């Protein structure tokens, strides 16, 4: 039990439940505990970088109906996402300011633990377990601290159905392959082509809903809008990556041929998501909705990169996934700051925040710049690498069309920035104090990481090595005789 890798998953879950032992009214104590625990979790994740590749496994059930194990393993790609999750959860914990903070903090920690388990899982069934478990804290937070329960239901029904698809596919995989202990395994079981086809459909459907990919996105703007800022920061930045992670690790790892077979459809949907998301983001007045649709647009770019089957694009995907997580977290937290102060997040109602609250304006600017892809920040590096990769894989038209929504990002983000930060002051807006130090401390590490990955995108390169079969999947989809000879 002393294995620290296991504790990366267990610590937030165990302490999340233990939070309920704290006094009900002690909001300060609860927040303090939450910050300490999430900081400890960040440290635990950082420690794992000392022994990448470490694995820990406990048998779950054997042979009947198949073999599964509570198998966790650290890999560069898993740790990259874990580190991002730990950092963003810490930031969210610092600025949490809700009623019944103890219960909220407990749910945040449970959410963090389930997502850690998801990224570190080496068994498909464990992956599915955490995938479904993730829904519960989000649902509870949405019904208690969210705006209206309709969004919570929509979130649950969409993602629950996706989770059931994943369960069916996982069960089928387990029965047919005899084991689900295969994530990251060197020699994955190969399935009969017909079975692989529909098992992959189950997985891909589930990932596409969670990410989300057009046209499975309709739950997402509602959920992000209804969530309190810390929750929105975590789910928009990290939970959306669980689908991307699934495609990268499980899709490429176990179903390279199927990935290639479905690539035309998926990348077309990605392209549609990019353009559609960008157009809708230009039109909305609710700042959170703008962010939600911009997120849809950016996630589409990730799909484009993944399905170009180009190693450079995969590095770009990882850089951009991290960048997207970080600037989304910054932006949702900053919008939370604005809403807390001005009691609205309608862009048309806001204006001139840069005059009264220069620090707030500055934070918003940093986030927006990263989001619209300012060179030097991680967003730009990721976009560039993905586009080069897509171009390099011969999809010239896709690369060219993908430029349009990237330019549109500048349009809709500058629209927000020009109005909210630099626009004329709105007279009847309450004048509130500028950012407190802890509110800056929360977003500063995220901004620093954006800069770091922007200047040195190679940080994500080791993680890209964990995405196997990228080039091989192209070869594997070529005439069957070739692929059989290579095995």
């Amino acid at each position, binding site marked *: 039990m002393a294995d620290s890798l296991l504790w990366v998953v267990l610590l937030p879950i165990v302490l999340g439940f233990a939070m309920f032992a704290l006094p009900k009214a002690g909001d300060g104590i609860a927040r303090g505990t939450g910050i300490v625990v999430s900081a400890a979790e960040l440290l635990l994740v950082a420690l794992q970088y000392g022994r990448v590749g470490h694995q820990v496994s406990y048998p779950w059930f054997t042979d009947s109906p198949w073999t599964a194990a509570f198998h966790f393993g650290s890999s560069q790609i898993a740790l990259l996402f874990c580190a991002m999750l730990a950092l963003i959860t810490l930031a969210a914990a610092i600025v949490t300011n809700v009623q019944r903070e103890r219960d909220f903090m407990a749910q945040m920690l449970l959410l963090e633990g389930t997502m850690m388990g998801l990224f570190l899982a080496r068994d498909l069934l464990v992956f599915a377990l955490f995938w479904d478990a993730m829904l519960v804290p989000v*649902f509870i937070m949405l019904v208690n601290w969210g705006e209206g329960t309709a969004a919570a239901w929509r979130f649950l029904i969409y993602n629950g159905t996706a989770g059931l698809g994943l369960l069916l596919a996982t069960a089928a995989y387990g029965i047919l392959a005899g084991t689900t202990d295969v994530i990251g395994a060197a020699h994955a079981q190969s399935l009969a082509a017909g079975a692989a086809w529909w098992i992959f459909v189950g997985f891909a459907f589930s990932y596409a809903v969670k990410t989300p990919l057009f046209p499975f996105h309709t739950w997402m703007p509602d959920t992000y809008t209804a969530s309190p800022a810390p929750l929105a920061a975590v789910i928009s930045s990290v939970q959306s990556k669980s689908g991307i992670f699934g495609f990268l690790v499980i899709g490429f790892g176990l179903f390279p041929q199927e990935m290639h077979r479905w690539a035309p459809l998926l990348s077309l949907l990605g392209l549609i998501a990019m353009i559609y998301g960008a157009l809708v983001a230009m039109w909305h007045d609710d700042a959170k909705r703008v962010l939600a649709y911009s997120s849809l647009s950016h996630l589409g770019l990730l799909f484009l990169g993944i399905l170009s089957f180009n190693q450079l694009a995969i590095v770009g995907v990882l850089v951009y996934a991290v960048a997207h997580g970080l600037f989304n977290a910054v932006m949702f937290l900053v919008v939370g700051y604005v809403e807390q102060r001005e009691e609205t997040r309608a862009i048309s109602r806001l204006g001139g925040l840069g005059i009264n609250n220069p620090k707030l304006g500055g934070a918003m600017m940093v986030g927006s710049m990263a989001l619209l892809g300012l060179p030097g920040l991680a967003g730009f590096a990721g976009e560039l690498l993905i586009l080069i990769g897509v171009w390099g894989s011969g999809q010239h038209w896709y690369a060219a069309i993908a430029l349009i929504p990237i330019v549109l990002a500048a349009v809709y983000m500058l629209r927000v920035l020009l109005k909210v930060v630099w626009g004329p002051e709105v007279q009847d807006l309450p004048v509130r104090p500028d950012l407190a130090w802890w509110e800056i401390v929360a977003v500063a590490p995220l901004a620093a990481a954006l800069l770091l990955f922007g200047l040195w995108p190679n940080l994500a390169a080791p993680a890209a090595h964990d995405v196997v079969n990228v080039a091989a999947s192209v070869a594997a989809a070529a005439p069957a005789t070739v692929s059989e000879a290579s095995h």
Partner: protein
Amino acid sequence: MGGYLQYVQTLDYQALLPAMIVGGTAVIALLADLLLPRRIANGTAILLGVMATIMAGLYASLSYGVHYLAFGGGFVLDGLSVVFQEIVLLSTLVTLMLFNRRGVSEDRPAYVALVLWSSTGAMIMAGAGSLMTLFLGLEILSLSLYCLCAIARDREVAKEAGFKYLVLSSTASGFLLYGMALLFGATGTVTISALIHPATGIHGLYALGMGIFLIGLAFKLALVPFHIWAPDVYEGAPLPVTAFMSVATKAGALAALARVIYTAIPQPDAHWLLLPTFIFAAASMLVGNLGALAQTDIKRLLAYSAVAQAGYIVAALAGATELGIRSAVYYLAAYAFMNLGAFAVAALLSSDREEGTQLVAYEGLAARQPLLAAAMTFFMLSLAGMPITAGFLGKIFILSTTIHTGYWPLGALLVIGSAVSFYVYFKVIRAMYARVERFSHPEVRPPSQLPWIAVAICAVAVIVLTFVPVMPGDATFFVK
């Protein structure tokens, strides 16, 4: 007669001992009522019942792995009978803990005795090796339940429940008996495993008898389309009785169904005889979950949910594979814990006058009693098949059974039914966790704190079963 009796050995009675302990204690509980002052008698009866259940459970567990045909094959001791008896005893134990005072303050020893007798009936069904024993067990179970449903005599709805159950369940018994008669006519035997002789093939009369017999069982299991009675009866019966009916009755009937499917229907040439079970399973999974959508009373909600859950279990059994029976047993055990746990939570929200089964009683529970809300959350998650609960793993096992056996459309229907059921179970979770400005429901003091034990046991079991998936592993699960 004497000639037959000399073949009955002590071992035969030992095989039946768990059921005899429980049934005998019921008589002692009634005697206690007669001899002791009322105040002492009430507590004594419950204590006796709890002790008898635990003793019977321990004794039955000792014979796990033993295979024995008692009373000339009339009662079978094998893996199946032990596991199902344990589940029946578990639900009896929890039922005894859930006693509330509503309408039964005067009759508690009688109440205990009736519960113990119906438990005896279910246990006999679990081990029934011949159609006669099966019917005997079923009638012991049902007759006691008729009285139990109507025991709160001052409530109109209870009387209605008792009467409805009496009429419909008797009809079902009639079906069952007619089916048995046809089966006997076709085969000349009442021993379940001897019903079919591989050499003779399938008689038309046999198929007819089997069909009618399965309909009778479907009535008892409340499988769609024979489920109409369940919501009303569940709602009218006192809470502990509802808890008992939703688990013990189903366990008894499922044991009988499993034994018939696995030993009396020859494989694979008579696979078409299993067709009704596929239809029952598919319809129950869909209709049960859809019916539960609109319910705001926990008892009615769990009644429809029980229809769907029975559908899941029948879906596992329908293919008559070894994996199927193991998945079904695992799921039934999980279901027993999660359902009984949910009823125990409802018992803790009940007052002397009113049962805490209205959804409104759960509003804001997470703020008032976080532990109780957390436990209920786990039970609901388990019913919905969400991690980290036994229901999740059980659903995985059943899904894998359907794929393994090659009837994956039933698995797909299970997925659709589960998707619908999210709304059902998360409605309760939402009620507990949603922000409420002020509680419209008055705080209640439960008549007894005993259900807390049941809640704790069930919650722990629901989680532990996920990590330690105990599946009965012995290959000779059925003795022919």
